[in-house]
């Protein structure tokens, strides 16, 4: 049986990891750890759930969104800063597990567990987020897109832990979607997932388009080909189909009990299509509304003359 140690300061945790890193398994929400025991050499379960420095959601010195590693998924979903400036992250967090899991599982845990199917990863990659890693020797930042080297594998050294996630704020009108295909409607791991984030420009156009996929490759996968197709172009069902094709072409999925490679490949395209079709519908509705307002204003103007 592993031993269990609970520490309340980040400094002490860093110290312990410096000394014992390879034998430690970090415990925060425990939603991964308690259902699948860590490798046997991890004999010390180090509880970090009471480290205040790892908690909270707010703005950092550079004006970026800081989500502490201990923030649970539901906290992220409900936070006003996330709703305003990182809606995509909220959408992804809302699709995780069940309310009970979202209330326990932490964002830091979802990142550190490094499952290829983790739902927050495609969203964070789209948002250009970085992870702040802390060690006794000092801190460093790594973009989420460069954090992973394989399933369950990260660039974290044994003496490092995830302190927080930093997300550049999105300003202006955003279009975002997160879609996942699971084995059922709730309490499920993704068979495949797609996230998209972009700014909206007049004429049904998207710019700064970012697309990323989960569960279709050993690590989270950005899809530059789809981004390039969509960037600055007028959205149309045809363009959407082409972007979906680009996702299908980029996917490198595997067969497992949860799904088949063939389905995963097909469904990432379908998920992006559905997300973009819904975005297109919303943009069209907004344009019609704006057009109606303009017309009404013109009519009023004529009346005054």
């Amino acid at each position: 049986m592993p031993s269990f140690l609970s520490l309340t300061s980040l400094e002490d945790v860093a110290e312990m990891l410096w000394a014992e890193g390879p034998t430690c398994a970090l415990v925060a929400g425990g939603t991964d750890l308690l259902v699948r025991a860590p490798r046997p050499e991890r004999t010390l379960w180090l509880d970090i759930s009471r480290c205040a420095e790892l908690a909270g959601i707010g703005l950092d010195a550079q004006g970026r969104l800081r989500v502490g590693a201990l923030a649970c998924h539901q906290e992220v979903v409900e936070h006003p800063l996330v709703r305003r400036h990182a809606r995509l992250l909220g959408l992804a967090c809302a699709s995780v597990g069940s309310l009970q899991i979202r209330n326990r599982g932490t964002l830091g845990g979802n990142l550190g567990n490094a499952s290829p199917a983790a739902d927050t990863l495609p969203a964070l990659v789209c948002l250009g987020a970085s992870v702040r890693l802390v060690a006794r020797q000092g801190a460093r930042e790594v973009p989420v897109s460069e954090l992973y080297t394989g399933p369950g594998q990260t660039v974290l050294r044994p003496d490092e832990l995830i302190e927080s996630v930093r997300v550049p704020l999105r300003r202006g009108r955003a279009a975002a979607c997160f879609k996942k295909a699971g084995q059922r409607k709730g309490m499920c791991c993704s068979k495949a997932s797609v996230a998209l984030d972009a700014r909206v420009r007049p004429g049904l156009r998207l710019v700064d388009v970012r697309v990323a996929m989960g569960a279709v490759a050993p690590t989270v996968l950005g899809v530059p080909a789809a981004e390039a197709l969509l960037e600055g172009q007028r959205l149309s069902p045809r363009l959407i189909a082409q972007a979906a094709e680009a996702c299908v072409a980029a996917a490198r999925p595997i067969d497992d009990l949860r799904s088949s490679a063939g389905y995963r490949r097909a469904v990432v395209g379908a998920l992006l299509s559905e997300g973009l079709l819904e975005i297109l519908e919303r943009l069209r509705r907004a344009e019609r509304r704006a057009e109606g307002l303009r017309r009404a204003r013109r009519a009023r103007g004529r009346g005054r003359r």
Partner: protein
Amino acid sequence: MARALKVLGKRTRRLDAEAKVTGALVYPSDKAPDDMLWLAVVRSPHPHARVLGVDCAAAEAVPGVVRVATARDVPGENAFGIAIQDQPVLCGERVRYQGDAVAVVAAESLRAARAGAAAVRVDYEPLEPVVEPEAAMRPDSPALHPGGNILHQGHFTKGDVAEGFRQSHVVVEREYDLPMMEHAYLETEAGVSFYDELGRLTVDSCGQYVYRDQTQIARALGLPLERVRAIGAHVGGAFGGKDEITVQIHLALMTHLTGRPCKLVLTREESILFSTKRHATRVRYKTGCSRDGRLLAVEARFVADTGAYASLGGPVLNLMLEHVAGPYRVPHVKVDGFAVYTNNGFAGAFRGFGCTQACVGIESQMDLMARAIRMDPLAFRLKNALQTGDRAALDYEMKTAVGAAATIRSAQKGKLWRGRAAWRKDLRKVPAALRPHVKRGLGVASQMQGMGLGIGLPDYCEVALELGPAGDCTLRASTSEFGQGAYTAYAAMLAERLDVPMERVRIVGGDTGLAPDSGTTTASRTTYAVGNALLMACERLEAELGRLAAERLGWPAGPARLRAGREPRVQGAGGQAALAGLLGQTPLEVRATYHIPVAEVELGDGLPHLLYSYGTHVAGVEVDTLTGEITVQAVEAHLDGGQVILRTGFEGQSEGGVAQGIGYALFEAVEFERGRCLTTNFNTYVLPTSLDVPTAIRTVPVVVREPTGPWGAKGISETCMVGVTPAILNALEDALGVRFTRLPVRAEAVLRALAEQAPGGRAGARTRRKGS
């Protein structure tokens, strides 16, 4: 006209509601006798192997371990099984599936017991697993049991199917591939054992029939029956999966060997590996009908994978055969069935009990035929629906109330079916942009289900009824309560019959030491059987009260009835008298035994039944054709259970049945690779959650009174589930034009089928139509 009912059919609160909601109710896994030992079972990691040796020395040296038992320590017959005792309590020579028990460890703590189990060294010689039932049936296959691999086979013919197909305008032929299904009860198999105050070796656990548990325990331990007591009252779910022995004999054995109380709770992985399942079955159907929609011929073949041991594999196969043609009249029938031993786990009883597999087959065929002759699927079913006096598929007369047509008519009048055209087009909740990619469809299925054990097996139910001087009643019946609400149903029936308020009724169940043998808690039989027995008991009670009144109060002879009130009274030929005065301090006890009536014909192997329940389901599905995701949006259940006893319980059963039927249709499958189970917990064995079950479930009671039933009631605990699955399959064809024949239908299969259906895809119809 019948007297208006006071209690039955109402939204009665369950007797155990408060205890269950507050957590006060004690389940088998909650029990913890003083000074108990924890048990852990050593199970085979191999699907098939010879046991060369078992070395317990290291396990016995683990601190806290008190005793390790192996096959040598089983004092009686080292075998169990409901029908045939072919499964060792502890395997000494050979293991036949992953999960077979080899040793049991008793220790002072759970941790020590598990450490001890891990330290038991078993020397196995792995053998080639037998995994393909068709191949296992051939004489050249390695035999898993002395009699070969065919546990049971059944063959019936009526008329001449060849002639039936010649007369048919349409003949449809399909093969269905149905998976093994796990019961997935909330509470895994669990229990405790101890010596009771009378020195009886007592097992308080989770069985569905305590008297049979008692027999099986006594046989394995070599003890006389009266030295063994089996308890199993409140259990955390069963669905047939706790009908067979699970933890009982291991518990009894270790208390017998150590003299101390013991406790055993299976882990979920153990439970899934070890317990019985629904039979994976390959089903082949060929059916024909006339141009005007008369069902003319049904030919079918079932090959059911019964896994490593017999359990109830034979009877399950028999029910497939009996229900081969569903609730329909058909002149020509030929059916063959085989239950085959393999090393793929272990199959046995499961809600539906073989009807499930037959129902998926025949109801899919009915839809295909209706489609081929362009007839409305409900009209087609109604035209062929069995009536009392008709001859059933296996050529015996339907003698009792037949609700087939009534449930079909009820479905025709139901909201979902009447509004079907609008329902199919109603995509208001789908984002407009996705509407072109979303398809809706409605499907129906009708079903009958034999009630009770059929002919040939003793099917009796004894109860004891006690009336106290204060007017409180105690009913003692040995059946179990595993969530279905049976005990509340008993109390409601007593309250209706005796003029005793429900809160004054106490049910003592599931205990061979306290309650007489009321038979199994299975086969949709409990409400019917216990209801009839308690009615007999009530009549006896009134006769006894009359006799006492005659003796003590000098009343003229004749029965006396109970009258409720603050001071309960008896009323009879001599007027009224206070109950307390009549009884004095001594409660009055009567007993009664009801024998479930059986058919006059006997086809062998327990066939056929005399009594059947009926149901017709309408299911509405929505399919996202881009992702292949299926959503069941609405289900309407038209269930003939005769008189409804508990309205809320009736609906609760139905809604649970819908959830399980959805699981069988779209989600669940126990999967094996060369006999090794791949789906050993709920992360890989995926069950539907509340989000996958529609909120729009409507349950419509169709009251076709069964003359022999208590107030005309019969059971619905299986009909409420079985028809749901084929109704969904039929709805999928309505939505997509694709016939799915392999369960579960997951998104992967939908996308594959749609790709094949697209221009250039593979054409799949095997429907022969004359003159076309």
